[in-house]
């Protein structure tokens, strides 16, 4: 078991003929992910990966033809909201958006629309998901994680890789790793993932990687203390971040004194979460 993606995932890649889309499609296929279709408007009828994956003009046609159940989006920020709407309207259950830099008002509209339709979005501005040994839906390097019982959820990309890698070095495996993204408005949050990990029989321990900005970690802490039976270990990035500055991620900013790393660490510790002082301490805190 795992959450959100596994060997039954039939993946569609929006933006499959672009540089990043194609590069990561190759990586996902090599990992063993079942990539059934690609979409690039205007390139329907073409094939990629030596004739292995058909390209369609629209998500609807791709879904009707191939039975895709999950979409991953690699299209530029100005076109990404439309790509998400298209995927939602085509009836996909899970949409993963890698794209960084989508305007926040676009994302508020997208999220409002998806909530009405009951469609799950992971991201945007995220590295996607990895269920080791089964499916890689995103850009997380496949060779840095092995199958196991640790569920990982993170607002970051490369910092997540760092943690996966540290786990692998000590032989700890992962059930599923979910990168929820660094934007202020995203599709799936910590609590959604904590709930899924709690219900997933394979997951026995959870790693939560947060960062400055917003109050999602504090809410997660409350949820952990109220509902979670599985142990949680955490790391919060941005202890040294100056207030009022956006630290790369659109969502990583301490505003009006709120959203600091110190507050988040305090809330998590109060909920019984063990918080690492740097990522390489995480495996030790899990064992």
């Amino acid at each position, binding site marked *: 078991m795992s959450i959100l993606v596994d060997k039954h995932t039939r993946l569609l890649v929006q933006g499959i003929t672009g540089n990043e889309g194609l590069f990561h499609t190759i990586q996902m296929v090599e990992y063993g992910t079942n990539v059934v279709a690609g979409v690039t408007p205007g390139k329907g009828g073409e094939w990629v990966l030596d004739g292995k994956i058909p390209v369609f003009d629209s998500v609807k046609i791709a879904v009707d033809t191939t039975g895709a159940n999950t979409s991953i989006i690699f299209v530029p920020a100005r076109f990404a909201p439309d790509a998400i709407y298209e995927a939602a309207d085509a009836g996909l259950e899970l949409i993963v958006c890698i794209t960084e830099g989508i305007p926040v008002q676009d994302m508020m509209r997208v999220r409002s629309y998806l909530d009405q339709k009951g469609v799950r979005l992971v991201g945007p501005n995220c590295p996607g998901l990895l269920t080791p040994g089964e499916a890689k839906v995103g850009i997380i390097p496949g060779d840095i994680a092995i199958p196991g019982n640790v569920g990982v959820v993170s607002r970051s990309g*490369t910092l997540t890789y760092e943690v996966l890698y540290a786990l692998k070095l000590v032989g700890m495996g992962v059930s599923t790793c979910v990168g929820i993204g660094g934007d202020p408005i995203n599709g799936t949050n910590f609590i959604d993932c904590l709930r899924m990990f709690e219900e997933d029989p394979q997951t026995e321990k959870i790693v939560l990687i947060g960062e400055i900005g917003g109050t999602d970690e504090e809410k997660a802490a409350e949820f952990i203390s109220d509902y979670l039976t599985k142990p949680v270990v955490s790391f919060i990035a941005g202890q040294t971040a100056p207030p009022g500055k956006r*630290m*790369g991620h659109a969502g990583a900013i301490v505003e009006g004194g709120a959203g600091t790393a110190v507050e988040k660490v305090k809330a998590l510790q109060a909920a019984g979460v063990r918080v690492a002082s740097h990522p390489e301490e995480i495996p030790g805190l899990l064992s």
Partner: protein
Amino acid sequence: MKLHEYQSKQIFNKYGIPIPKGRVAATAQEARQIAEELGGRVVIKSQVLVGGRGKAGGIRLAKSAEEAENLATQILSMEIKGLPVRKVLVDEAASIASEIYLGITNDRAARRPVMMASAAGGVDIEEVAAKNPEKIIKVHIDPLLGLRDYQARDIAASIDLPREHWRIFGQIARGLWDAYVACDATLAEINPLVITADRRIVALDGKMVLDDNALFRHPDLAEMRDLDVEAPSEIEARKYGLSFIKLDGNIGCMVNGAGLAMTTMDIIKLFGGEPANFLDIGGGASADKVAAALRIILSDPNVKAVLFNVFGGITRGDEVARGILAALAEVKTNVPMVIRLVGTNAEEGRRILADAKMITAETLADAARKAVAVAQAA
């Protein structure tokens, strides 16, 4: 990106929000001329992107055109919190009967915009929020529906606005919403919105913060950026699509990914060093971008060591390695460099860098320890 008061008010006015008569001036003579046109009694307001202008003496009332010129001379020679005053707004002076706060911002937790209003306007709204949160009315707006007329009426009633003003208040609230949407703002704020002695409602001050990610569809607004508020290195970094923030330490950091960049800063501090910057080279960093990043880091004379921490995902290790080589060929330096390269195409990257004189590290902690050690030895 923050807009100046005069820019925000011009935008508000375009969307039907009444503002005082006035114009912006870059010289005292211009200020005098505007004051003459407005009949002498004017307010001279420094246009700098910091709070507390009034307390710093950057907002003054002039009773004549001559006084306006004198005050403008003084204010235009001021620095407020380190920022030079380059322009003043000369507005007709209003006689204020009462002050209201009205603003729209993004509520992250609710995932939608929120309109906020308070009868306690004219003061620092964050202070009101902290001390008397019940004095602030909050109404969430469905981003797909927009502000509804009834919501504006509810707000007017909640802040005890006399009924005679409801119609114009509705128009102002609607205008603020339209401006917020049209400009992709993350904050649009009128503080204070005043009721004048002659019973008009006027936006006396205005503030807008725009979403940097949306500027691609607002080239006209992007041009309004005030470069005074940013360090020159930050402006240079933006040209190359780098996310860079200058700090006060002596260990330069070049990292891919924002979370990992923050973590790299944190771990430098944890091991007794001080980071000189935050720098995310972003996804798919090309050789050009890496070279530019290195130049920017080394332009800071405080930097005694550089720590490269690259975990390949979208960013490929070989690409970064080529960038580092190109940069080292171009920027001659004796500053010691520590590098840690892991992930997509990392092995190829390490091969490319084998001949460069760099200190290599396996783990993040190891890299941080080594960087702190060489910086302290320098």
